[in-house]
């Protein structure tokens, strides 16, 4: 490992580190625009200039210079100061002075760095260049005059997203960043370029002119739009969530989030249930909480009560409902709303065991019935990285546009019964083979057949370095799934068991995908936050809190327990879910054993200890043997990526995305 001297302090840096990284290790801040840890090195902004000896007697771009033994690096010399001032002055030659009307203001790299490293004034008094704005779709607002040509957005779409849409056309002073023919960026991660853009060239269109960063309250949260459990920062002002940004978590979402996670939040203020409703004479009528609970008290279900958990529920709500049902003597809990009935006796068999981080190192991957790009865009990014490292990918299911190549083996699950020889050989000869079974691959014997392949291929094995490799993965679609399974929200026969039990009362906890016609004889009590399918079918509607409006514990598809904080209050009369269930217990005249949220959490941690600790729950490495055969044509569950949950369906931005990007409607853009 080379030893270098940074500003006179000798440090040892890892082999292959750049001078910029060496300076960072030494605690020196190096200004930069084009350099980004997760993208390839471009070296075109020249902001990271430092003085390096031995070497030519001129400042050098540290981001693209390898750190070598014996280098003497200066970041504080006169030469470096002048170089930075010079680069800054050049960058600002064509940059407009429109910070007061720019959305990046207050969180702008160019602004911050010109204050910190600039010379305070420009000697340039010619005309500035102007560039036309480019259409990049409903999510990205562009003001290309502000662009400093760092090409981070170009590199992101090519390297991370795997969809070459953005490019730099023309040359020199005429260079412009654009999408091809100004078509909208259409992949599921497109809005991440907004975070990457160091200036205000690419900003968020839905959030345009909404707020300044210093006005916002920042809350740490977990995304519930898919089962990845992306770490997010919820920015709110007053009672409204204005935007969602990714938080860095290398184990989960790195520093990206999907467009849905980012932009569904405007749905949090639309179609909200803000009052209790009772069905009177076939119509839902707004009532007070008191009336609602006196009506509930009359239901008197005894033990004939069941609960269905929705896709975006936190564990606390599910646990509170479980306690309530338990107190009433029922254990009819189910979370798989659409009728899936795969075997959940071993949680390891329905978990993403490899982990998002390690799946990158897999060298042969078999994907069964998962359209990863829409079901978990951030896992798709990991798969792309794996393929870049040389992994072979085989897919079973109808063809979709992958961003990593891969070979489609057929649309029918029966391919699992007899894998083609070359696929079998590739998996057998791989050092780190992996399988990913998606939602569409779990049913009709798919899970058992996959487990059988897993045991034949010995997907659970010890690696050369002594660590354990578990290559069997299930990729769920809903944020509540793993938490629900840990809390026992699974019947042997799936939701059909609930139908068969014909409960007097059905608690629908944010459940909007259930076929309620099968529960025609049950009183449906819907506890949720959006007036979607569930509320339409309900006899009693109790308004609850969405994921930004309550503290909650979520378990992602890897079995990673994560905590989310409350950012804003629920609107109107809506209450946090657990308080509603607690009050219900009073109405039914039973005791659930907790009066505060802390007591609820403690009770939950006592029953399922893993839910009390942040991090991987750990379900062990023992997979059931599986067996049997699978058959049936795979149909992916997500038909419309932008409208998969009630919040997204209520969101105007998501509806617009769906209309313009998926269904090709004409761009509904107001004249600017």
């Amino acid at each position: 490992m080379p030893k270098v001297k940074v500003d006179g302090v000798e440090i040892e840096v890892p082999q292959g580190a750049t001078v910029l990284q060496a300076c960072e290790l030494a605690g020196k801040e190096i200004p930069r625009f084009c350099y980004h840890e997760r993208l390839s090195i471009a070296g075109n902004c020249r902001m990271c200039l430092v003085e390096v000896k031995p070497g030519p007697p001129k400042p050098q771009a540290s981001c693209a210079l390898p750190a070598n033994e014996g280098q003497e690096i200066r970041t504080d010399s006169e030469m470096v100061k002048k170089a930075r001032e010079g680069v800054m002055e050049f960058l600002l030659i064509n940059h407009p002075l429109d910070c007061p009307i720019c959305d990046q203001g207050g969180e702008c790299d160019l602004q911050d760095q010109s204050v910190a490293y600039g010379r305070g004034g420009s000697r340039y008094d010619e005309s500035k260049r102007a560039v036309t704005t480019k259409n990049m779709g409903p999510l990205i607002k562009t003001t290309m005059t502000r662009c400093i040509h760092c090409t981070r957005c170009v590199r992101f779409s090519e390297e991370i997203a795997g969809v070459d849409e953005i490019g730099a056309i023309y040359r020199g002073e005429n260079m412009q960043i654009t999408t091809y023919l100004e078509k909208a960026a259409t992949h599921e991660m497109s809005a991440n370029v907004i975070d990457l853009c160091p200036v205000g060239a690419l900003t968020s269109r839905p959030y345009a002119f909404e707020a300044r960063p210093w006005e916002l309250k920042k809350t740490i949260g977990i995304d519930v739009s898919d089962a990845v459990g992306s770490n997010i920062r919820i920015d709110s002002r007053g009672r409204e969530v204005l935007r969602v940004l990714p938080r860095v978590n290398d184990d989960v979402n790195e520093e990206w989030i999907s467009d849905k996670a980012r932009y569904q939040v405007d749905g949090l203020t639309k179609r909200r249930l803000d009052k209790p409703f009772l069905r009177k004479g076939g119509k839902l009528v707004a009532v007070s909480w008191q009336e609602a609970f006196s009506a509930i008290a009359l239901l008197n279900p005894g033990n004939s009560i069941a609960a269905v958990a929705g896709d975006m529920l936190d564990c606390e709500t599910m646990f509170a409902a479980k306690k309530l049902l338990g107190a009433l003597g029922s254990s009819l809990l189910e979370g798989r709303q659409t009728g899936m009935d795969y075997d959940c006796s071993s949680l390891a068999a329905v978990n993403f065991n490899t982990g998002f981080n390690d799946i990158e190192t897999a060298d042969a991957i078999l994907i069964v019935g998962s359209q990863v790009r829409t079901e978990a865009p951030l896992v798709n990014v990991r798969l792309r990285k794996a393929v870049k490292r040389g992994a072979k990918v085989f897919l079973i299911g109808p063809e979709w546009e992958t961003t990593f190549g891969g070979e489609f083996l057929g649309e029918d699950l029966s391919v699992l019964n007899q894998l083609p020889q070359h696929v079998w050989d590739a998996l057998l000869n791989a050092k780190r083979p992996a399988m990913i079974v998606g939602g569409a691959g779990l049913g009709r014997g798919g899970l058992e057949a996959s487990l059988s392949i897993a045991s034949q291929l010995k997907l659970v094995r010890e690696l050369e370095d002594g660590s354990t490799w578990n290559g069997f993965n299930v990729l769920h679609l809903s944020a509540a799934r793993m938490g629900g399974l840990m809390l026992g929200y699974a019947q042997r026969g799936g939701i059909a068991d609930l139908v068969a039990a014909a409960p007097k009362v059905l608690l629908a906890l944010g459940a909007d995908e259930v076929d309620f016609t099968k529960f025609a004889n049950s009183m449906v009590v819907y506890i949720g936050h959006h007036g979607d399918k569930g509320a339409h079918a309900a006899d009693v509607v109790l308004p609850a809190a969405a994921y930004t409006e309550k503290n909650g514990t979520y378990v992602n598809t890897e079995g990673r327990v994560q905590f989310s904080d409350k950012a804003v209050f629920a609107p109107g009369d809506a209450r946090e879910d657990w308080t509603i269930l607690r009050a219900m217990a009073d109405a039914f005249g039973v005791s659930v054993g907790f009066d505060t949220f802390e007591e609820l959490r403690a009770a939950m941690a006592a029953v399922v200890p893993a839910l009390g600790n942040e991090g991987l729950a750990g379900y062990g490495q023992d997979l059931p043997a599986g067996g049997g055969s699978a058959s049936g044509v795979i149909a992916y569950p997500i038909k419309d990526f932008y409208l998969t949950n009630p919040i997204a369906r209520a969101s105007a931005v998501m509806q617009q995305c769906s209309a313009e990007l998926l269904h090709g409607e004409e761009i509904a853009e107001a004249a600017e």
Partner: protein
Amino acid sequence: MADRYIEPDTPELRARWGNFAWTPENAEKAKDVLSRYPEGRQRSAVMPLLDLAQRQVGAEENTQGWLPIPVMEYIASYLDMPIIRVVEVATFYTMYNIAPIGRFHVQVCGTTPCMLRGSDDLISACKKRGMKAGHISEDGLWSFTEVECMGNCASAPMVQINDDNYEDLTAERLDKVLDALAAGETPKAGTQEPGRHTVEPVGGPTTLRDMVTENHDYRGEW
């Protein structure tokens, strides 16, 4: 450098060029070009193929040739690469025309050596014929661009017309060249100075004179 902009993507453009495909000869040439690159690196052929396509377009409409958007798309699908990467290349290099062009693309060098040797006269001679930057003359013959140094300073001033350079020009000599081209003749390319062959010194060598007839060892004279 004059402003270059991609010809807008219109239904008419699609109608005219949407069916672009290699002619049989060019299909052979394209295959040959592809074979020069190692397996998996076929995208590198984008530059020669764009040139080939531009020439084919030129042959079809009897101009120097240019690259309409559908043609760039054809190249992208031919090489199985993202179209934006093709557009990046085509818009970067000025030898690819990205807007319609005349039969002859007259590129007059206006950089210092040529300017000192009278390129201003050449430019006004061109203007007299109705040439204007970024426009095709009414008869469809001429497109005009003032360019920076083309590396012919020893025989300045010069113009480049399509694939040939014409050097040692005066306004009259340029007129002669342009008249010949307009008449469908092929004027002699290179220097237009009588008695000069390439860029050898005018009036005989001034240095290394002993080397003119035979090899001479100067080392003893240093």
